[in-house]
């Protein structure tokens, strides 16, 4: 019995030691943030590689970009660059850089650094996430504070990718053997938080850049990140008040989080996330018929769908498919089109017209008499989409269609979607600073891939010649009025052709606790998105926040 006794007494000792530990006070001025969900942190601050490997906020917080796009304002604001000008022929773009910016090692930030960063992307295609070298032909520093981008063709939307690129210091990255596989454990950057003061498997802390260019900022002393493997653990820490700023989905947030401390706990879920669609595979009959696609759309009761699938955190999508980040672009007439509104009678009429008539058993058949079955594919564990799929299947069955929800493991679902081996699938859509990216991957013939070939988007495999022409004109104009007029026509084409069936825009999850810090964006003060996932808005929030107590 002696070993058992030894174990028991050791445990008892440990317990005593443990229970005597009072909770220690939090380090003052330290902001606890929960963005990424991991069971353990791996040290990586490489801002150039596009994957998910680098720790938040490497790309917008440690490193900075030239100009910031904020969807809540719908416009760019100067950051490392104070402004930009296009040449007369729209083939050269010049950024004027801010003076007095220094790297966190004290060296001056110059146009050489910007030019070098883009040269790195040219040399290593793996770093060129925006594909900027598809439209650039050269990048040069003109003096210490001007960078000139030479375009190989006029491509105005390329501005967004250039402005958003994190800039790295030449004097450091010149010495890096392979920038693609460099984990950059001790970043030298221009952002507000550059010093890695703690890095352990469960926690890391970033401290202030001693040379930050905005005087007196950041007011927050340090950022601290605890490792939470799943949403539940992160939400528990948020509700308990341990985390100050988070970007998690919280079920029944007003009751579980806000109501706990209404004075300090706040959430803001603006509909700035990508719109969720029901994608029809338009290479397969009868889904190649626009009447059928519109009928499927009109069969859906989206009000119920967002209530059941999304806890009412969002609204039904309108006929443009755009989320609220594009509010300034949305054409009100198009948005009101009837094909996204619930109208079972009209849906049935359209199906009859398309030759999908009901047989004696009440089930609709194709023109050749074969029964029509429709499979809706979603990822098994994604409960919001599974619920959405169930509502969709039920609404379609009411029309006499044999619709079935099929759940797949993530990689299987994704492979089927990308290769065009599905009938109907629920998935997200692409976003960018203008609706250009969104509609390009919705309607442009250039994005259509053959069935069996991987398509990064445009899974419905639909191309529209008229839209191609409109998008081409959009690429070469920098006049906002003209862009606006072209986008209105693209929206009209989208609504007419209904290449995919919009369900609802995704909310962008953001929660804040202002007990220790003030200055979080809110619906009343939307200077940035509250969601820390939103890059590069995080730079605006990180520099705006200030601790309540004296640090």
């Amino acid at each position: 019995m002696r070993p058992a006794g030894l174990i028991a007494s050791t445990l008892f000792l440990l317990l005593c030691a443990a229970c005597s530990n009072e909770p220690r006070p939090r380090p003052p001025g330290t902001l606890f943030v929960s963005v990424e969900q991991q069971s353990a942190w791996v040290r990586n601050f490489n801002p150039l590689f596009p994957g998910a490997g680098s720790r938040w906020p490497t790309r917008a917080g440690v490193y900075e970009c030239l100009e910031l796009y904020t969807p809540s304002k719908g416009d760019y604001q100067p950051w490392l660059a104070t402004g930009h000008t296009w040449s007369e022929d729209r083939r050269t773009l010049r950024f004027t850089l801010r003076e007095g910016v220094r790297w966190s090692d004290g060296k001056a930030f110059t146009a050489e650094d910007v030019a070098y960063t883009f040269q790195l992307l040219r040399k290593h295609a793996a770093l060129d996430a925006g594909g900027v070298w598809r439209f650039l032909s050269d990048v040069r520093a003109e003096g210490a504070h001007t960078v000139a981008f030479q375009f190989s063709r006029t491509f105005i939307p390329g501005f967004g990718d250039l402005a958003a690129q994190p800039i790295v210091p030449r004097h450091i990255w010149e010495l890096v053997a392979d920038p693609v596989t460099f984990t950059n454990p001790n970043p030298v950057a221009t952002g507000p938080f550059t010093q890695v003061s703690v890095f352990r498997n469960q926690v890391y802390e970033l401290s202030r850049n001693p040379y930050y260019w905005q005087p007196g900022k950041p007011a927050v002393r340090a950022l601290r990140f605890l490792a939470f493997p799943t949403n539940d653990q992160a939400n528990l820490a948020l509700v308990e008040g341990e985390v100050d700023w988070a970007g998690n989905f919280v079920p029944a947030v007003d009751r579980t989080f806000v109501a706990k401390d209404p004075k300090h706990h706040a959430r803001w879920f603006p509909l700035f996330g990508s719109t969720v669609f029901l994608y029809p595979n338009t290479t397969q009959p009868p889904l190649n018929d626009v009447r059928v696609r519109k009928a499927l759309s009109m069969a859906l009761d989206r009000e119920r769908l967002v209530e059941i699938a999304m806890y009412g955190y969002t609204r039904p999508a309108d006929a443009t498919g755009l989320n609220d980040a594009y509010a300034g672009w949305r054409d009100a007439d198009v948005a009101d089109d009837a094909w996204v509104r619930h109208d079972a009678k009209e849906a049935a009429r359209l199906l009859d017209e398309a030759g999908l008539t009901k047989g004696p058993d009440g089930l609709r058949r194709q023109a050749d008499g074969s029964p029509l079955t429709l499979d809706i594919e979603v990822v098994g564990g994604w409960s919001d989409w599974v619920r959405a799929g169930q509502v969709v299947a039920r609404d379609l069955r009411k029309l006499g269609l044999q619709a079935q929800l099929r759940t797949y493991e993530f990689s299987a679902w994704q492979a089927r979607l990308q290769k065009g081996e599905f009938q109907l699938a629920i998935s997200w859509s692409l976003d960018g600073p203008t609706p250009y990216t969104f509609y390009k991957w919705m309607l442009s013939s250039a994005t259509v891939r053959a069935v069996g070939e991987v398509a990064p988007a445009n899974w419905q495999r639909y191309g529209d010649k008229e839209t191609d022409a409109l998008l081409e004109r959009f690429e070469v104009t920098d006049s906002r009025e003209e862009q606006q007029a072209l986008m209105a026509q693209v929206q009209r084409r989208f609504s007419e052709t209904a290449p995919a069936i919009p369900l609802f825009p995704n909310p962008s999850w953001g929660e804040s606790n202002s007990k220790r810090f003030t200055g979080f964006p809110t619906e009343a003060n939307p200077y940035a998105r509250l969601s820390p996932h939103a890059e590069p808005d995080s730079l605006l929030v990180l520099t705006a926040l200030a601790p309540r107590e004296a640090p």
Partner: protein
Amino acid sequence: MRYVLRRLGFYLLAAWASLTMNFVIPRLAPGDPATAMFARFEGRISPEALVALKTAFGFTDAPWHVQYFTYLKHLLTGDFGLSYAYYPSPVTEVIGTGLLWTLGLAGCAVIISFAVGTMLGVLAAWNRGGWLDSALAPALAFLGAFPYFWLAMLALYLFGFGLGWFPLRHAYSHDVEPGATLTFIADVGRHAVLPATSIVVATLGGWMLSMRNTMVAVLGTDTLRLAHAKGLPPRQVMLRYAARNALLPNVTGFGMALGFVLSGSLLTEIVFSYPGTGYLLILAVRNQDYPLMQGLFLVITLAVLAANFAVDLLCLWLDPRTRAHA
């Protein structure tokens, strides 16, 4: 000695077979890691990034047999490559974030559970019909029948959230400097109590029951009657004669349990936010992170084989019959 060598040869063969499976199975799964990572962004990065990701992960179109030999060569030289999900961090670094914690927590829990459970089984069989046998055994079996996830959540809610006796998460406090200090060790101990206890409680019943049942059978044999007749002290009969003979099936089970320590504590890790390899394994599978998967499977395979080899040796010592065959 020949017996040991033969076992060793068998283990080498088993290692080769499982490493080969490890190479083949991930490649049979649909999709590829670049598209998996691209899809994780749900539209927040531009489609051009897919090209960039594919370039970085450097897919070779080399024939399978060439890839297979490169794979074996890399394994032998300890070069696991770079993880895709954590690109560009090396697989060894990623596994390093959790390996020791899993070994420490789940390893200790399995050993404690085995030792205590087996001892309880011995006592229950020896005092058949006593309170240990009639009350504790069913109670533990009852606890063990609960889904582990639920049990762990309940423990976390009661003792962590409600009573506040134990921390809610992590292997140590985020503001304690790790090191060989008493504060840190006490902190780690405090954090380990709930997760370790939850594993022990969930598995104790199994060990106790199987030990009790084998022991009861052994107690009825002639050997035991002889031992009693010789007038040996009851304690010696219980431990040296009955328990030693009844221990064999439990020891085999212990070897298996030890081997699976590295892969089997996913739920503990998730409920208690404990760093470990179970979570990494799930993440690797979800992201089709072949290098990380291969690294983890190698570690798990080696652990299972090593534990079984150790059990073989232990059985050799416990059971003279195996020695006779050798």
